[in-house]
């Protein structure tokens, strides 16, 4: 088991290395940090631009391979992921934003899973009844609605509510604004901030769990072994709950593990709409600022998350499914 995991890890490290390198070359080819300076008014002298770019190891006059090896050397020797065009180290910038993202995403992911899986089970058992049709229609609507539209409409609605009640019930920007020392008020303040982006993320996130869990359960509901269970004397509902549900939750569990990957990039739009300083927003900034090192660092981070999720999914599947389980 351990040996197996190590082998898979080695493979993942190689995969990650190739993928990140590819991202580095793509970023270097398509992003133009020089233009940041060229558009300044007054335009700085070329020598000073070159000096700044050289400091961050993003000067397009240096051959890309040389830059790549410098960059690689920095990571391997000092865990230095490079500087932004403004000479800010990117790795600490990424690290400092992880906490905001986790706060935002953790709550909504848990809620999404609970709501989505429950709805999936609920609708699968009522296949083609009106509850199923209605909930599916709602989920389809959320499935197709762009996150930006959903976020902005909720902001619009909230402002209307705030105006109507004359108080600020919900905040539409940031995660905190309370500065005092009262824990209770601080929590309330946090909730007032987090609730709207959470609603958006849950609306977007639960749909997938709902629709896939419904499919998985419908698949297993017609399985022969459910029929066997009924022949033993279980009622249809008992047989579904005990036999079909358990089996149908296995793929869902691996889906959840996979979703770790999307946690940090899935909230880009939401973070932008609600002005939350998380990883997603940082990513947008790096792109806008032609921050090659920053963008690659983010890509690397989400790559690690993806592969961690994949590994976790495998382990979970093996743990839950005796057919895969090790003897």
């Amino acid at each position, binding site marked *: 088991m351990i040996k*197996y995991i190590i082998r898979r890890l080695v493979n993942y490290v190689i995969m990650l290395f190739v993928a990140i390198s590819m991202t580095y070359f793509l970023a270097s080819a398509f992003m133009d940090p020089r233009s940041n300076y060229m558009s300044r008014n007054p335009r700085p002298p070329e020598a000073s631009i070159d000096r700044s770019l050289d400091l961050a190891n993003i000067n397009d006059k240096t051959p890309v391979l040389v830059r790549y090896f410098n960059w690689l050397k920095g990571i391997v020797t000092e865990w230095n992921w490079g500087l932004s065009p403004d000479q800010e180290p990117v790795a600490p910038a990424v690290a400092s934003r992880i906490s905001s993202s986790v706060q935002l995403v953790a709550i909504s992911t848990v809620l999404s899973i609970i709501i989505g899986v429950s709805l999936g089970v609920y609708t699968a058992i009522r296949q083609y009844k009106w509850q199923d049709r209605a909930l599916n229609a709602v989920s389809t609507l959320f499935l197709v609605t762009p996150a930006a539209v959903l976020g902005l409409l909720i902001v619009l609605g909230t402002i209307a509510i705030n105006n109507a009640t004359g108080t600020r019930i919900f905040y539409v920007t940031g995660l905190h604004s309370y500065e005092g020392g009262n824990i209770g008020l601080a929590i309330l303040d946090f909730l007032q901030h987090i609730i709207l982006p959470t609603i958006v993320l849950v609306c977007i996130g639960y749909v997938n769990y709902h629709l896939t869990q419904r499919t998985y359960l419908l698949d297993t509901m017609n399985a022969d072994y459910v029929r066997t269970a*009924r*022949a*033993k004397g*279980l009622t249809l509902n008992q047989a579904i709950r005990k036999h079909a549900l358990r089996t149908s939750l296995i793929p869902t569990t691996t889906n959840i593990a996979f979703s770790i990957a999307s946690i940090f990039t899935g909230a880009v739009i939401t973070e932008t709409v609600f002005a939350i300083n998380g990883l997603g927003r940082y990513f947008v900034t790096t792109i806008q600022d032609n921050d090659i090192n920053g963008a690659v660092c983010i890509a690397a981070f989400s790559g690690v998350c993806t592969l961690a999720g994949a590994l976790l999914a495998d382990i979970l599947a093996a743990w839950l499914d005796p*057919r895969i389980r090790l003897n």
Partner: protein
Amino acid sequence: MTEPMNTVAAAPANGEQPVLEVRDLRVNFASEAGTVRAVRGVNFDLYRGKTLGIVGESGSGKSVTSMAIMGLLDKNAHVEGSIKFRGDELLTKNDKEMSVLRGDRIAMVFQDPLSALTPVFSIGEQLKEALVIHNPKMTEEQIVSRSIELLKLVGIPNAEERLKSYPHQFSGGMRQRVVIAMAIANNPDIIICDEPTTALDVTIQAQVLEVLQRAQQETGAAVIFITHDLGVIAGIADDIIVMYAGRPVEKADVDTVFHKPVMPYTMGLLGAVPRPDREKSSRLVPIPGAPMNLVNMPKGCPFAPRCPLATDICRQGEPDLLPVEGREGQLAACHRVKEIVDQNLTFSDIYTVGESVKSKFDGIPREQRQTVLDVKHLKKTFPLTAGGFLRRKIGEVHAVDDVTLDVREGETVALVGESGSGKSTTLLEIMEFRQPESGEISVLGKPIAKRMSREDKRELHSNVQYIFQDPMSSLDPRLPIYDILAEPLKVQGLSKQEINDRIRDLMALVELNPDQVDRFPTQFSGGQRQRIAIARALAVNPKLVLLDEPVSALDVSIQAGVINLLEDLQNKLGVAYLFVAHNLSVIRHISNRIAVMYLGRIVELGSNHDVFEEPLHPYTKALLSAVPVPDPQIERTRQRIVLEGELPSPSESFSGCPFAGRCPMFSTLTKDQQARCLGESPELVAKGGAADHMAACHFA
């Protein structure tokens, strides 16, 4: 046909009350094409300790009937009539009320043991559930001891340990035993078996049938045994209902049905099956046509379009199932039953037995015919990987282990064996047209070499063709028949005109209407599709056709027609067949030579007569004795050699005879002899009378 009197097949004299009374049961399903009338009036009574066999082809409504009794039909099924269990009406009960009876009083064994058990629960948990749901007060100790008792009863060794195992760690036969154990857990009054052995090999089938009979004796339950296999039913049933197009068409005790059937369909069904216990005497007689579509059924007797005796009355109205005059307890649904009984018409009077075509090679002894396929010491191994998670190689499977055989012009060589014996792998290995891992394959004297020119490959393709088991999947559903048949011809580079002409001839050759070449495979019935597959294989005039279970996916009444066609084509064209089948009856009928395979090796090789009449190898003997014969008298009297245990894991390697562990002869041998069996691998050598009758056994 609603009077209860008529429905009694064989009421016991002592006036015992039936446990189950089914009256005028009707089941309809809604479907895309219209209402499917799956069951159209079934009546029967079931008595304790008796076995009622329900026989029919696919779509005859036999399984739907059983599911209706269990209350397990889909929601879109519409059920009418009455099913009474000990006087208690079942059809008005809801799921919850039915669940009290299910598994406790009425139990069921399903067809496919591989999918019948929940993969994520251990055997013990699943058995426990069956017990606890009806006996909530059972203590943990009682449950365990009862579970072990049940597993022992159905013949699972090491029952204590096996309780912790998961279904995937069991073979199909073992899983079916577990399902049976769950079914008898609460000593039910009725056990419904829906094709319980169809998915199993014949030696395993014999074991499972034995377990079922033992279970019936233990519980005294009434059994409903549903099957399409007349051989199995002959041995196990007391009374038989023959179903056709959703209705019983004949009902009687087992001997009467087999020896004095009156309904032409029953006769046809019995006549269409080849017999494993008799040498081939004549052609098989297929029932013409195909089973009725259950949507928009025409009026009249549903069998009328296929019945040689059909007259205008038959096409006017559907006959009721009525007692046959002068026959005790026999009922039949046929307008012409009186004539049949009065004139004592039998199968051969009603159906016309066709003349077979004379073979091109008739009279030429085998030695003088050209060898089309020569296989020498063929080996094929697969790496064995463990589980899905730990994908590492843990061993090798010797799928084909040192197989040597030859096929000559115009003859049929059959490879027989149970699943895992390597018979299909042998065919696929030949068809790969590449140098085998080890050994040599020659076609028409030319060995298959590592590198072959395009021209040589093309020639190989024109000489050797392949026919698959399931015509449903071997024809591309997106292509019309014309394109399907044209494909091998295009490979051979024929011109458009040549292809056109050839396809017309081919359609005629397999007795299909050439005007139908624009249709798609889905528009044909199973038998017709297999004819198309045969036509495709013969399109390029091959010298050798490899057939992998070509009739096992077909209904019995259709099978005979395809077998006849294969015979005729062989005789007309002189093509040789290498035929793989697990059905020994079919093999007995069609083949000239037989190779019996066990764990990748040929254990016996000889002519049809020698292998069936004077089998040498103990495995062959056991195999032959396990084949059910469609004759109740023979079934009752004959002694079966039931093999112990299962096929060993194919990854095991043996220094001696691989069969030694299951060999019934092994225990009769002396210590020294046993040591030889375990230590020395037997060679395939000529034994017995004929020079070409060989067996791989030290003491055969």
